[in-house]
């Protein structure tokens, strides 16, 4: 999203999203489907719960010694003939990739789906350098055609109905397209086939990187990842530093739960293991392989309040079950990573002030924790972020005064009783038939769509104090 769009307050962005009928239709269908598929996948998988705990433990242990595991990874990638680069900031990561493109004379880059390259806004940088990026994942291809950004971690075009995609294809590709997913996929395949052959550069993310063996692991469903990593002369993989896992044994644990959480599949259709460039005698693979390790605020959180978020596998399950995400979709959040985990990642990458409002975009219902394969306690960290926002006095002064008053009132029972009496007097003009239908702001935010019960004529504690029958 552009900065101009970000200046619209979050509440308004969410409001417009809820008025978008296409978005509402697409979101309801897709998230409901994902929820059901995930539930079924785990229902038939009794060992799943223990594997989830195991996966989390591996992530925690890896974070303990992240430097050591990264060193091992780097040594092994280099041993296999690959090059490793370290980027502290998104800008550094961009220039590393652009330099590789320049040096190798690349004119076109095919890309597999990758949130890390979205995070660093790589496509814009490539275009500016005269390299045409082509997204080859179907969802990413759709949003690239539409000049949009992904609205879901694993289903980037989740906000579009199939009718909208058909219209987009008809308009942009100048071929009549029917709103039928299979037909649309065929069209995209045909368009992309030549690009794979033309491209000099293949760019991917990485779901995991195995330190022990120097293997970059890509989990995909369309097979495009395999083409991107094998056909072009040069392959660049960009990954957050936290994606390293120590060994293949560890990798198996994650693979056993990742696809189930994401799409309800036992395994994704393709699990590509990439090990350095083509070696002598091999028929396939790039001449050059580069791994870009991205920090971008992650390393600081190893000892920070958002540490747990570094265990995220980017499966998207927490988005699908989030009641807020399900109403507003991904774009309204305004940053690369949407949904509940997205709020934490945005705070990690952009700093806490960026999520002043987003930190409150949650009812703290906890559905995300239950769905998360590694049980990340997202609500706890959202509360932590709210606290940071309060501590830094970033919240509006009216709110801070209101909460200071509330604290006083809740600590002093006489004040509390007085407030109950005052409430009864003040509500008189508004209460009718035991309900309040309209109140001035800020309570008006409640009564616009809901009635409010009035303060009882006698509170329970008042009754208890005066009714002998009740006490007897």
């Amino acid at each position, binding site marked *: 999203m552009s900065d101009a769009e970000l200046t619209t307050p979050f509440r308004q962005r969410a409001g417009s999203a809820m008025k978008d009928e296409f978005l509402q239709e697409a979101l309801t269908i897709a998230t409901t489907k994902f929820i059901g598929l995930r539930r079924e996948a785990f229902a038939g998988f009794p060992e799943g719960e223990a594997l989830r705990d195991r996966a989390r433990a591996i992530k925690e242990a890896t974070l303990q010694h992240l430097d050591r595991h990264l060193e091992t990874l780097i040594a092994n990638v280099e041993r296999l003939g690959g090059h490793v680069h370290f980027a502290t900031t998104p800008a550094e990561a961009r220039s590393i990739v652009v330099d590789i493109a320049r040096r190798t004379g690349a004119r076109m880059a095919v890309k597999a789906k990758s949130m890390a390259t979205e995070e660093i806004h790589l496509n814009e940088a490539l275009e500016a350098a005269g390299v045409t990026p082509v997204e080859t994942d179907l969802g990413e291809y759709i949003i690239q055609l539409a000049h949009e950004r992904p609205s879901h971690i694993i289903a980037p075009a989740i906000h579009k109905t199939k009718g909208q995609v058909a219209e987009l294809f008809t308009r942009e590709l100048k071929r009549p397209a029917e709103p039928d997913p299979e037909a649309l996929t065929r069209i995209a395949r045909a368009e992309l086939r030549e690009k794979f052959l033309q491209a000099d550069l293949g760019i991917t993310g990485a779901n995991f990187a195995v330190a022990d063996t120097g293997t970059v692991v890509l989990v995909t469903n369309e097979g495009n990842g395999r083409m991107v990593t094998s056909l072009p002369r040069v392959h660049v993989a960009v990954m957050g530093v936290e994606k390293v896992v120590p060994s293949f044994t560890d990798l198996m644990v994650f693979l056993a739960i990742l696809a189930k959480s994401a799409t309800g599949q036992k395994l994704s259709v393709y699990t590509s293991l990439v090990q350095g460039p083509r070696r002598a005698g091999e028929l396939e693979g790039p001449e050059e392989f580069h791994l870009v390790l991205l920090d971008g605020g992650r390393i600081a959180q190893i000892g920070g309040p958002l540490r747990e978020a570094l265990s995220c596998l980017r499966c998207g399950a927490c988005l699908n079950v989030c*009641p807020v995400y399900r109403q507003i979709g991904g774009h309204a959040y305004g940053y690369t990573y949407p949904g509940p985990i997205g709020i934490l990642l945005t705070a990690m990458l952009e700093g806490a002030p960026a999520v002043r409002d987003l930190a409150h975009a949650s009812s703290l219902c906890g559905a995300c924790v239950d769905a998360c394969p590694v049980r990340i306690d997202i609500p706890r960290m959202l509360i932590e972020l709210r606290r940071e926002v309060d501590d830094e006095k970033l919240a509006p002064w009216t709110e801070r005064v209101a909460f200071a008053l509330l*604290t006083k009132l*809740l600590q002093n029972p006489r004040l509390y009783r007085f407030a109950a009496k005052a409430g009864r007097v003040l509500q008189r003009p508004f209460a009718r038939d035991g*309900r309040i239908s309209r109140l001035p702001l800020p309570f008006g935010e409640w009564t616009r769509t809901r009635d409010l*019960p009035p303060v009882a004529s006698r509170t329970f504690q008042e009754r208890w104090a005066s009714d002998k029958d009740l006490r007897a």
Partner: protein
Amino acid sequence: MTARRASLMVTCLGDLFFPEVGVSIVRLLRKLGVAVDVPADQTCCGLPLFNSGYRGDAAAVARRTVALFKESEYVVVPSGSCAWMVKHEYPGLMADTAVGPEARELAARTHELSQFLVRVLGATEFTAAVPGRVTYHDSCHLLRGLHESESPRMLLGKLRGAELVPLPGADECCGFGGSFAVRLPEVSSQILAKKLANVESTGAGCLVACDAGCLMQMNGGLKRAKSRVRALHLAELLDGGR
């Protein structure tokens, strides 16, 4: 039966807006042979402050509550969210203070109402105050915080005069979320609308929940829509056959 006496933590919403719930709990427990006391000067468990990030203020309020219930053998709470606050957050909030051990003890002695009835008292036979078809909404903190989905369903399933029907999406949030309901009222209301559409689809005349927050939200929506469905606290429904 193990409990002879219990203290009612009525909670701020219960005290101010739903006093009948407290009255029903007192009557229910008394019928079961449990004497009820209500320690004076209760205000709130501090959850609204805690959830909004005012941790220090929440701890100050929590310390009061710990002192109020110091002598209580059992503490019964009508709302899953407040019970969760006491059981799960109090010990951490006061961990490094002099009252840390007391907070931990209070956490162990505190029970949400349906859990107290079923798991402590073993009481499951009641008569419906409002006969007919009922459906049950899982409050988030009770379900995912206290991992309780069975006790309320067992009570409603055995309830004389009532027929329990399943609610589609029963485990989905009602959109309350404390200050969330007024910070993002549009989102909160749309979540609520979906919940209530599911409620209407069951044909139940009565929607039961174990949390004053959810009841405020769902009843607010039902009344605004002039629905014939009433949202009731579990205690009110169990309190029949007097």
